[in-house]
């Protein structure tokens, strides 16, 4: 075990005190002199042409300073280079209820509201598409003219030979799974404050974003302004979960309104607007087939996935590709086939949500694997161990696996949950289930297809021997600031409170791609290490010269620099800094990280998504009890082991793992966006239930440290990988408890009761579980 002094400590999160005392400033807390309130007119129709918009009455209303429609800013944008299909406001067509038609900036919120009511829009309604399988049959009136049959993208991957693999199997099982749509429900609604200053022709934007850099690029494009005229700042964020990882309409709308009004404009979404902005986890229909030998070895897996994307591209194709790329890759399966369709419907666009793309397929796969184990009479924990990868290795779809704590995760949860004494042995109505999941530690290929480093940080030692850490990485509550600080403090051997963070301000901090795909600890972390090592090198050089020793004999630790040559020479960090300043003047260093070429995956179409420098793994045992009269499930306990490579801060890792489990449980048993003809029937937190601490079962987090060879001090992803397994673990536990398998999410009480009743019917007996 390496001998660290700051890494591995349960350091409280550095942004914690400001948040819990209410001192911290979120975007909506900010105000500027003369600031206007922005409001958006949303489409009442799911699919319609805009024949005419008359804004004259709104413009004439006293207090209204700007009214903007689609024609004013028609430049297209989108998070993926292949998906620039959005505009600040609809140009001639609306594509979902809630689509953005016009914006108003006024001196008061009430005035802005009134102005919206004065905008007249003539719509010509078009046939609308809501069902993902039906929309693919559309022959005309496509949602985007350039996307025939409303198919945004399709991918067909074949690795090995699946037909042969299945032919060699002793058991082949198939099932159709259906996952409902869920959304992030972050506490903080999307909010943007934009300030266009006509005197300097500069735009400053404060926004609730996980990706300040992409927002910067998008604003330059939409407004037609040079990048250097725009500055994006990320204040505190009240949760993102992927919902703020692409540019959300409010961000460009506040900017264009400010540009038009030449005054600061703030827009904060209402909760209903947050629900309609969405970008959450899509409906997926997954037809899955798994083949296995009698001993449980998997011979092939085949999936056909139809993904209901909503009306715009967003991250959609990436979501779909993750579903395929990570389908079989946590096990040793030599034959994998994936056919995926990302289709367009007249609903808000789906996008990235914690566990991006992997969650629904994991639910399907781990549920079906449980069935394979049961039908073969193999312990479900054991069947997973029998199919483990042998790393270092490259999976059949060319993902490079460098560290693999999954078997250890399984062993740990089996032991700590009492699996052996419980599985199949608890009284009727109680049961346990096991499942696994995995996730990327950042994408090895940048979504903007750039070759520049994915993260860069700068360090600067100030006169008072504090160290300023300038990083583009975005703290969104996941611990990004704290982890970077711990890594730098460790490498420099200084007290953590010497380090002052300046983060996520595109004018002052170097480029970081953002907080998504669980990339920050791995990538910004590696950049921090590189920068700190550069800085330390300079420091040692200076000290070595003072002492007349060689720099490689020095060590920095506990706020001091010492010689390791038996001389007993010691110098405080301040003295070392003073010595370095004498010699070099300023003391600065930079470090960056780009994923290595070997981690970047194959060359086939769609190969760019899935490759990562390292993968996290999770195994979970859920213990549930089912009320067989009401169908209600109560999750009593989750034992979860997460392979995070190295826990730089065990407390924040545990927090992330527990949060992931909660979020997974929400989707497992209750969360669902319910649509009726493109209208969301539950757009509020009094109707859409996301799990809170109140409903949390006992969660027992176990950290497995596989020490990845390329991770920062061995660390890997911790914020997402444990989400997916929670859902199938619960589903499998329900099967153990009452003998029914629910193949759709959420696993509602009503579905369970129905399944229990159907099983009681005499003709439905057969493979009905252990009872």
């Amino acid at each position, binding site marked *: 075990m390496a001998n660290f002094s700051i890494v591995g400590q349960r350091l409280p999160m550095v942004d914690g005190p400001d948040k819990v005392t209410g001192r911290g400033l979120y975007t909506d807390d900010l105000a500027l002199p003369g600031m206007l309130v922005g409001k958006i007119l949303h489409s009442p129709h799911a699919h319609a042409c805009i024949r005419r918009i008359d804004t004259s009455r709104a413009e004439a209303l006293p207090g209204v300073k700007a009214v903007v429609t689609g024609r004013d800013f028609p430049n297209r944008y989108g998070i993926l280079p292949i998906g620039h299909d959005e505009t600040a406001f609809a140009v001639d067509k609306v594509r979902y209820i809630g689509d953005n038609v016009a914006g108003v900036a006024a001196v008061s919120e*009430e005035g802005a509201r009134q102005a919206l009511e004065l905008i007249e829009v003539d719509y010509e309604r078009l046939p609308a598409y809501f069902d993902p399988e039906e929309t693919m049959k559309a022959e005309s009136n496509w949602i985007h003219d350039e996307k025939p049959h409303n198919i945004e993208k399709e991918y067909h991957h074949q690795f090995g030979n699946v037909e042969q693999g299945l032919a060699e199997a002793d058991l082949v099982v198939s099932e159709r799974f259906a996952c409902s749509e869920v959304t992030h429900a972050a506490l903080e609604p999307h909010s943007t404050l934009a300030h266009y200053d006509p005197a300097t022709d500069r735009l400053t934007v404060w926004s609730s974003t996980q990706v300040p850099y992409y927002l910067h690029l998008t604003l330059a494009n939409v407004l037609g302004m040079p990048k250097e005229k725009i500055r994006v700042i990320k204040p505190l964020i009240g949760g993102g979960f992927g919902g703020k990882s692409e540019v959300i309409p409010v961000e460009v709308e506040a900017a264009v309104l400010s540009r038009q009004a030449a005054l600061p404009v703030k827009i904060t979404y209402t909760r209903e607007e947050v629900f309609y902005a969405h970008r959450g986890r899509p409906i997926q229909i997954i037809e899955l087939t798994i083949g296995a030998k009698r001993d449980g070895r998997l011979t092939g897996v085949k999936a056909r996935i139809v993904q209901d994307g909503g009306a715009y591209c967003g991250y959609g194709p990436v979501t779909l590709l993750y579903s395929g790329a990570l389908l079989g890759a946590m096990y040793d399966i030599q034959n994998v086939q994936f056919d995926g369709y990302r289709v367009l419907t007249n609903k808000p666009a789906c996008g990235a949500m914690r566990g991006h793309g992997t969650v629904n397929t994991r639910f399907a796969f781990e549920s079906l694997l449980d069935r394979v184990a049961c039908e073969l009479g193999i312990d479900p924990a054991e069947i997973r161990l029998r199919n483990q990868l042998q790393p270092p290795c490259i999976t059949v779809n060319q993902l490079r696996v460098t560290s693999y704590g999954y078997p250890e995760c399984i062993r740990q949860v089996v032991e700590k949950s009492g699996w052996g004494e419980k599985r199949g042995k608890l009284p009727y109505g109680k049961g346990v289930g096991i499942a696994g999941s995995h996730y990327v530690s950042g994408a090895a290929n940048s979504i903007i297809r750039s070759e520049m480093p994915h993260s860069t940080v700068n360090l600067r030692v100030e006169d008072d021997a504090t160290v300023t850490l300038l990083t583009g990485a975005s703290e969104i509550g996941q611990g990004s600031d704290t982890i970077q600080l711990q890594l730098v403090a460790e490498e420099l051997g200084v007290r953590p409170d010497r380090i002052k963070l300046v983060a996520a301000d595109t004018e002052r901090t170097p480029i970081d791609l953002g907080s998504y795909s669980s990339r920050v600890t791995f990538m910004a972390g590696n950049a921090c290490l590189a920068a700190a090592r550069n800085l330390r090198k300079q420091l040692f050089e200076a000290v070595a010269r003072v002492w007349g020793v060689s720099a490689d004999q020095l060590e920095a630790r506990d706020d001091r620099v010492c010689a390791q040559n038996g001389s007993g020479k010691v110098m405080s960090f301040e003295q070392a800094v003073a010595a370095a300043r004498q010699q070099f003047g300023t003391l600065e260093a930079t470090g960056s990280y780009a994923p290595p070429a070997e981690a970047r995956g194959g060359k086939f179409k769609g190969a760019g998504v899935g490759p990562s420098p390292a993968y996290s793994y999770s195994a979970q045992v859920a213990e549930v009890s089912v009320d067989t009269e*009401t169908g209600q499930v109560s999750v009593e306990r989750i034992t979860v082991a997460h392979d995070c490579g190295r826990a730089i801060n065990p407390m924040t890792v545990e927090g992330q793992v527990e949060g992931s489990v909660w979020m997974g449980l929400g989707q497992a048993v209750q969360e669902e966006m319910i649509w009726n003809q493109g209208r969301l029937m*539950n757009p509020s937190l*009094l*109707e859409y239930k996301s799990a809170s601490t109140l409903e949390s079962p006992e969660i027992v987090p176990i950290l497995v440290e596989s020490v990845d060879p390329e991770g920062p001090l061995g660390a890997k992803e911790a914020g997402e990988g444990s989400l997916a397994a929670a859902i199938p673990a619960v589903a499998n536990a329900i099967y153990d408890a009452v003998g029914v398998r629910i193949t759709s999410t959420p696993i509602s*009480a*009503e579905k369970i*009761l129905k399944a229990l009743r159907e099983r009681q019917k005499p003709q439905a007996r057969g493979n009905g579980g252990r009872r």
Partner: protein
Amino acid sequence: MIPASFEYFAPRSLEEALQLLAHHGTEAKLLAGGHSLLPMMKLRLATPRTLIDLGRIRGLSYIREDGGRISIGAMTTHAEVESSELLRRRAPLLPETAAEIGDVQVRNRGTLGGSLAHADPAADYPAALLALDAECVLTSQKGTRTVVAKDFFVDMLTTALQAGEILTEVRFAADSPRTGSAYRKLHHPASGFAIVGVAARLTLDATGKGSAVSVGITGVAPKPYRATGVERGLLGQTLDAKRIAEASAQATRGVEPLSDLQASARYRAAMAAVFTRRALAAALGRAQKQG
């Protein structure tokens, strides 16, 4: 999320409030705890021109017993009902029901009168009031009248309250000896409202037979109702688990269960039976404990 503008009055007496109500007519809304009205105003589902706040009127918040009859002032909060020692001893069904309403914040602000007057089909109190055979006291400038709970709830969000009337008090008989009661509820996972809520009160005679049985059900139909089919199956019978289970199957007889996002009509009907049985079984156990 801002309501339309309105005029606000905070009368100091009931007379003043009645006057204002008479003067402003249907343009006015009474404001009690605000926990149903204000959300509706923020969503602009309600846009009253005038609000008459009952919060400054003394003497509308009390719980007392007089000769075996309990009376509760309309402005008594859910929290006060929940924690009332008197009610816990003399009519424990009501505090048990109050404890199931919303969360702490809602219970600290929401009032008995507001909940009843609002008549949300998923509200909890109505089930208990029905089971308690309560009567509602309605006051207007013309005087007061009383309406029994069964007639007070007219339809979804509609009560027997007429223009110019304020619900001022709720009254009912305290429990007699050998009486047990219970409230059992299937919560809406997000809002906490009742998908099904069943309040049961029963009294045993010396031989263990049910001499009085009442079951009030909320959440299931457009308005709360007495499950008379269930009651008939138990009245005068020796009560045990089996008989209760049989009778509970009648929980939705004569009503058409609602179907919504949270539960289909079929599921609601099934749950009405399950929660009726559970409430009655708990009530029976408590009655028996009193010997």
